[in-house]
């Protein structure tokens, strides 16, 4: 049997390869198509959705799977919560969210329409959402249609709606629903670096690095933790002095020349500190390229192993949770860095247009947005609320205050004073591309690097 | 010419003794064959002489000088292996010149000697051939040429003829004898074939279970085995058990068939259980009341007759004895016919049971 099936599959592959790449018009599954239009039009009761979800029976959720604590929380909280609705959770643990986006794009190109894909929900934000959105591959504006949407500000006139309606400056159009928040944070180990010695802004960082070469590095862009570091550098070195504000514009609105003008000082700073980063300074005979770890796990490993004294990454309560799980030394603390602006954003659950279990995906989005689960997530693994706390009851707010892990060494007020929003999604590719060309590869002048990155966008 | 001496040589492997106190001397320029069934330790002995095994105890001496501490490559020996072990990646010339090349002999000298040796073994036309392109006999000659080219002090041969067919074996036997005489190399030869040993060797050492049981000229071994096993191994089938009765210079073996006069046995003791042996070709056979005279005469009946290679071998049953008799004459006796057999006392060899 196996042989026969495999031979048939082989023949199929052979045909596909000979014919070239299949190009069919997306032709959806009529049933899924009907559900989609009815649901998006608001014609379906939530009970009808639940009923269909139970019939679908499962939901496939693709998310970044590099965190043990998050994986544990999902399996112990979300899975049983969905099981109550008769939906089995299947998670796809990604090393990179782009893999899920790729899959959706490839499926769409292969003509797999509504209801015929393989992923129901993606933990997504920023450029990945931007990619799906610009290709028209989102399921639709569902975010305000699930019952728990009551815990989000979606009112365009209310400035508090901003983080829910804009993702990296790009309108979400309610095609994704916030499920978590994040805050860029820097941790030090006070056993190695006194709090008073720790740099507080980029000028101090540079001075400190010249004194202590090799004691700092950042995650390699285009990994988002690395991008964010570069973004904060660019904010801080914005010659207009208005930091993040210029970066809220879309790439086209800003224009190449303006981008060059406002980012050049920042990139020059990055180039200046490169020889003083971990592994920089020509120590390995290959022109001394520094070590940029691949992701936050790699960065933390360097921090834990005593190779660097300060580690910056997303995770508002990461330090507290890491001390609790034994990863960080008990002497680890957070510091305010850089004083010019620490990026905070929300991240979302997106549903691709070809989700095979769209009703179950809605149920998943709703379950993730419930105050109960949101508070549990904050309390157990230190992930910031995706819902807006001011819409909760007083008891719930009190509970949040009670369970929230410590900021270890800093206060909410100090943090709130320096928090800034993320960059416009359309600029992220350009920032990455420029970093790769100008910092990593040193492939030409700054201007050429930026122009190439703009053109490749 | 070198004298090779083995002194109380012992080789123990983990759980058994392969060679058990062997003493043996190979006179300069002579050829000694170590004869014995497989597993008797003869190859191990040879390998100890070569330095491929280290003796557990005892000594190997070349001209009275111990070589036990000397590694194989510095003993200056030649060894012909059972499977020739020609180097498959070298042609005949390279194989033959190997020993000289290892000794860093000059190229012109190598060329001269290779040509010379190849002529001796009559392979001068095949110098560029590879071992896989040679017949068994040719490979054998290359193997010998390769060992003699360095003028070894001692030549060791490990069953060199066992992989050849009967005709070739005869040819090579003659060739080896000629070569050995011509070069006068002290040679130790291992074989399990008694004919080969008798034809080639000046002296034969018979080994069983790691021990040297008899050492002597082929004639001695052949006609006067010292034990039953040697006799058996040498192909003597007529073993007559009995009890000895020793008088001054002659002794009598009282066997089931009656008393037998034996020539030897002065060193034996009366009353001892002993076995007398006689080779089939040394028994005379004739018609009853024929011309056969003297002692040790029996009357018997032909039980079986086999014709083989110009001789007739009879099985004669006489007075409870079953004797094998080989007759080279042209007479024929029929099965069941009554005959007289006679054994000359000088051919009757006695050893203790």
């Amino acid at each position, binding site marked *: 049997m196996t042989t026969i099936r495999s031979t048939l599959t082989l023949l199929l592959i*052979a045909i596909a390869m000979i014919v070239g790449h299949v190009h069919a018009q997306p032709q959806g599954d009529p049933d899924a198509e009907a559900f989609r239009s009815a649901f998006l039009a608001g014609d379906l009761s939530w009970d009808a959705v639940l009923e269909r979800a139970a019939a679908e029976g499962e939901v496939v959720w693709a998310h970044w799977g590099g965190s043990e604590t998050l994986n544990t929380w999902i399996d112990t909280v979300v899975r049983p919560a969905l099981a109550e609705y008769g939906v089995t959770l299947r998670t796809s643990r990604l090393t990179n969210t782009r893999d899920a986006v790729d899959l959706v794009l490839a499926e769409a190109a292969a003509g797999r329409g509504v209801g015929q894909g393989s992923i129901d929900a993606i933990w997504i934000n920023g450029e990945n959402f931007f990619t799906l959105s610009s290709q028209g591959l989102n399921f639709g504006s569902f975010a305000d249609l699930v019952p728990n949407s009551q815990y989000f500000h979606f009112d365009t006139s209310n400035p508090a709606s901003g983080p829910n309606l804009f993702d990296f400056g790009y309108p979400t159009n309610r095609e994704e629903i916030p499920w978590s928040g994040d805050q860029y944070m820097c941790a030090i180990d006070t056993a190695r670096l006194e709090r008073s010695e720790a740099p507080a802004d980029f000028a101090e960082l540079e001075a400190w690095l010249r004194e202590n070469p090799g004691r700092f590095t950042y995650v390699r862009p285009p990994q988002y933790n690395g991008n964010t570091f570069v973004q904060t550098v660019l904010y801080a070195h914005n010659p207009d002095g208005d930091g993040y504000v210029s970066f809220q514009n879309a790439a086209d609105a800003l224009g190449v020349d303006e981008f060059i003008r406002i980012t050049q000082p920042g990139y020059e700073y990055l180039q200046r500190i490169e020889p003083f980063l971990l*592994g920089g300074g020509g*120590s390995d*005979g290959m022109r001394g390229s*520094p070590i940029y770890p691949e992701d936050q796990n790699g960065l933390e490993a360097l921090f834990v192993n005593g190779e660097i004294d300060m580690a910056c990454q997303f995770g508002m309560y990461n330090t507290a949770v890491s001390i609790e799980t034994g990863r960080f030394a008990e002497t680890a603390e957070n510091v305010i860095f850089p004083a010019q602006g620490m990026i905070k954003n929300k991240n979302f659950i997106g549903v691709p247009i070809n989700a095979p279990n769209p009703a179950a995906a809605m149920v998943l989005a709703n379950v993730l947005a419930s105050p109960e689960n949101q508070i549990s997530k904050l309390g157990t693994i230190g992930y910031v609320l995706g819902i807006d706390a001011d819409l909760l009851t007083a008891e719930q707010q009190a509970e949040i205050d009670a369970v929230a892990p410590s900021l270890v060494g800093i206060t909410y007020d100090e943090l709130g004073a320096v928090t800034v929003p993320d960059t416009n999604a359309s600029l992220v590719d350009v920032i990455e*591309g420029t970093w790769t060309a100008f910092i990593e590869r*040193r*492939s030409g002048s700054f201007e050429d690097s930026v122009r190439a990155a703009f053109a490749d966008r | 010419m070198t004298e090779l001496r083995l002194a109380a040589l012992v080789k123990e492997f983990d759980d058994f003794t392969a060679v058990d106190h062997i003493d043996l001397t190979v006179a300069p320029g002579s050829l000694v064959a170590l004869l014995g069934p497989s597993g008797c330790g003869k190859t191990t002995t040879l390998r100890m002489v070569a330095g491929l095994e280290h003796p557990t105890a005892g000594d190997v001496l070349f001209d009275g000088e111990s070589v036990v501490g000397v590694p*194989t490559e510095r003993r200056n020996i030649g060894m012909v292996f059972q499977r020739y072990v020609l*180097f498959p990646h070298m042609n005949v010339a390279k194989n033959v010149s190997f020993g000289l090349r290892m000794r860093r002999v000059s190229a012109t000298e190598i060329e001269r000697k290779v040509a010379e040796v190849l002529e001796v073994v009559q392979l001068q036309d095949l110098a560029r051939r590879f071992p896989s392109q040679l017949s068994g006999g040719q490979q054998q000659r290359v193997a010998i040429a390769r060992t003699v080219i360095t003028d070894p002090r001692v030549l060791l041969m490990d069953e060199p003829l066992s992989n050849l067919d009967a005709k070739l074996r005869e040819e090579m036997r003659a060739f080896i004898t000629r070569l050995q005489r011509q070069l006068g190399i002290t040679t130790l030869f291992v074989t399990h074939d008694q004919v080969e040993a008798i034809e080639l060797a000046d002296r034969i050492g018979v080994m069983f279970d790691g021990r040297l049981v008899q050492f002597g000229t082929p004639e001695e071994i052949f006609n006067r085995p010292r034990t039953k096993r040697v006799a058996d191994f040498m192909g003597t089938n007529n073993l007559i058990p009995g009890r000895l009765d020793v008088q001054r210079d002659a002794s009598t073996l009282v066997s089931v068939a009656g008393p037998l006069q034996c020539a030897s046995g002065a060193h034996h003791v009366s009353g001892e259980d002993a076995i007398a042996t006689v080779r089939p070709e040394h028994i005379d056979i004739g018609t009853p009341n024929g011309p056969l005279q003297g002692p040790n005469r029996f009357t018997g009946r032909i039980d079986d007759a086999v014709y083989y290679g110009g001789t007739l071998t009879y099985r004669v049953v006489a007075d409870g004895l079953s004797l094998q008799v080989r007759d080279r004459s042209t007479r024929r006796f029929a099965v069941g016919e009554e005959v007289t057999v006679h054994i000359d006392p000088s051919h009757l060899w006695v050893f203790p049971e």
Partner: protein
Amino acid sequence: MLATKPTAPRSGRSRRASWLQRLYVPLMLTPVLLTIGVLFFGALIVALLQSFGHAPIYGIEEFPTLRHYRNLFTLPGFWSSVGLTFYYALVPTVVGTILSIYLALMLRRRFRGKGLVQFVYKLPLMIPYLVGVALTIVLFGNGGIIARGMFALGVIESTRDFPRLIYSHAGWGIMIVYLWKQIPFTTLIVYSVLMGLGRESEEAAATLGAHRWQTFWHVTLPQIMPGIVSATVIVFAFNFGSFEVPFILGGGFPNTLPVEAWRAFEDADYSNRLRAMAIVMFIGVLSGAVLFTYLAAYRRFERLRGRQ
């Protein structure tokens, strides 16, 4: 056998038999050829077409173009990548082969605990490269066990003083993993060839007056050469195309070619995937060319020596 008996009633069957006989070889080979042909060469053809600009899936159709290759060859750091790839592939192959031959020769000897050694040395062969990577990180990182031991002994004062073995372009960590995994592999091959050869030809050489080194050089080595050649081919080809080891332990840009291909493929800009395909084709051709030259040179060498 049927064909030799052309009796009348059997002629039908014999015709069928000969028809079957003619198809016997192709039929028996079909499954293998189909699988490798479709999956392996199919994949390569797709990669080849994409590298020449045929990629409708990304909405790119510029076939045929050499643009992606041209871009590749002018890419900053590309030739450094080629050099690094060769360096990481070649050094462990050569060093590992020498160490393996020595180990195989040692394993033929008698010593106490030989059974244990023969069991243990094969362990790395059985487990994924990634385990070797994990071990290397734990041991040789600048904050790893060895560095900590040296710190405790006062040899170094900080992680900075420890020589950088991983995450560096010198590639010590990468090559350590390769050696750790591949010495057992090459040793196994050389050892089994040695076992097949037996000791006799070496003993013969010794009786002919060859010293140990001469014996090895003139007798043993030439006879185990075919095994060594196939081992080095496989090892080099693997190292040349290896991804996960240099990806994790490498020193960053410039990366080895496979890591460059991966990065180009994972780039946000889909058109870079065509570059990834160009890199991948380049790796294949380069690796094939090197190994082909190597094998041809070896054959020529054997022929010069006269062996068929």
